[in-house]
């Protein structure tokens, strides 16, 4: 087995004395679609926040493509090649769809105040490149027609796509999707599965997603990890997870329907 793209070892996180994550170890191989599931409050989003540098775990190591991420700020982690979306949509309000997606190119470009004030040739070239990349990402997720609308006025499903386009514009190697199917209808979910596959296959981006819709998870992912009460209780192929007694118990023990796994 090759060195995993993302490797977490012994991650511990606590807030004001409450343990949120305990000794979580976990790896994602390059080129996979991997999923993280678990009941509400299991610590899935907290784990995302540790990977992306928004939380600082009190213990453990996180490495990405051989690089230690533990001391890096979120923007450095994005620059290192990890992009994310948010569970509740976090588009920049009052800005157009295109402007939203252009934000992703910030860490791949360099023009500063002087370049902008003097309108240097290098700055103008860069601006064109930013627009071109943003447009290409929008076209890829299928909402290029709406690029000049104010992003927050789009239908919900399209806003989710804009968030994905914005993350793609950072040119990541690993994309973290936090509940990308939340609030989508059946048709939109099917399209999402197609989109996730084409991101992996056409853009060679590894994907890690958190999702509540276990049906979608089982269809789209090659590896599934289960988090419960801040601990990793199972890991394996979708089939192995569906039959794992600990997983079934974790779901039965919560309010959620264990049938969802089957």
């Amino acid at each position, binding site marked *: 087995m090759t060195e995993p793209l993302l490797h977490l070892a012994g991650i511990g996180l606590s*807030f*004001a004395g409450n343990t949120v994550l305990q000794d979580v170890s976990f790896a994602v191989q390059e080129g996979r679609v991997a999923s993280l599931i678990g009941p509400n409050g299991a610590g899935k989003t907290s784990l995302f926040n540790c990977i992306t*540098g*928004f*939380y*600082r775990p009190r213990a453990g190591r996180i490495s990405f493509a051989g690089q230690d991420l533990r*001391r*890096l*700020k*979120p923007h450095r982690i994005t620059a290192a090649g990890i992009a994310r979306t948010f569970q509740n949509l976090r588009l920049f309000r009052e800005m157009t769809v295109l402007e939203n997606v252009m934000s992703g190119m910030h860490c791949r470009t360099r023009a500063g105040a002087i370049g902008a004030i003097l309108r240097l040739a290098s700055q103008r070239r860069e601006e064109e490149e930013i627009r071109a990349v943003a447009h290409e990402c929008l076209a890829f997720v299928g909402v290029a027609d709406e690029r000049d609308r104010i992003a927050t006025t789009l239908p919900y499903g399209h806003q989710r796509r804009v968030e994905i386009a914005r993350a793609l514009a950072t040119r990541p190697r690993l994309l973290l999707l936090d509940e990308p199917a939340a609030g989508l209808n059946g048709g939109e979910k099917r399209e999402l599965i197609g989109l996730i596959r084409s991101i992996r296959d056409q853009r060679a981006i590894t994907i890690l997603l958190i999702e509540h819709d276990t049906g979608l998870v089982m269809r789209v992912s090659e590896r599934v990890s289960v988090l419960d009460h801040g601990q990793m209780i199972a890991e394996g192929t979708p089939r192995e997870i569906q039959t794992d007694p600990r997983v079934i118990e974790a779901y039965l023990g919560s309010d959620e329907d264990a049938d969802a796994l089957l």
Partner: protein
Amino acid sequence: MSLTSILLHQALNGLVLGSFYALVALGYTMIFGVIKLLNFAHGDLYMAGGFVALLVLSAISGIVGAGWPGIFLAMLLAMIAVGCLGVVIERIAYHPMLGAPRLSILITALAVSLVLENTVLALTNGQYAAFQTSLGFGGVAIGGLFITYSEMVLVGMAALLMVTLELFVTRTQYGRAMRAVAVDTDMCALLGINVPTVIGVTFFIGSALAAAAGTMAGAYYGSLWYFMGFLIGLKAFTAAVIGGIGSIPGAMLGGLVLGMLESFGTQIPGIGSQWKDVFSFVVLILVLVFKPTGLLGRSEQERM
């Protein structure tokens, strides 16, 4: 004067100054606690308190005199009047803005501060107003230190107000609700706590404490000015930050620490009293750089 008596004298100065800072800082920190707003107008409520007390005192001094009984009465009325003013300001200016971007709320607070200052400026023509009392300069000598009765009463009053506040916050239903709202407003609303009332009570108490400090400062220094709230607002913020913003004991401690720092800091050779204010701002910036959560503030989950 011997070195000991100089040090004792500065400690006393620091204590008096620190009491004023602490009283104003308490309101700052309580209001920040419940609505997460830096209330720029808070220092101006201190100024308004001084002026209301002066008005009351000049009206009643013919009957009760301008000694301590008159000052207490004036202070009490000023606390009630300015407390209500604080509630009105919250309802009119801040309440409609709670969903607005932070920048808009901060500017609104600044606008409220300017309205208060310029109202008093227009009414007083920008002149100093004499706060005449018949307190005199009597006192007792303890060791090498002479303490006036006024100083003793002022520090005693400030301590009494702070103890009362502490009891209110820890022992009463409103006090507990106030602390709960400071932790999680949305959750409190879900649990059936009447959040707007709690915010109103907080504004009332915070403003009343500032008015008490304004009255005491007027009686102590003997004059009032429309702009006197500006500097103390800044100092009180500094005190609140030193103690840990949002923390009530922190505001008391921070006020005293800042009072002492200023009092002793100006004795360092090369830092005369003309540098006193610069000294406190430098302290503020240093605290923000090295210990932004202050002495007693809770640290949040560290964000990188």
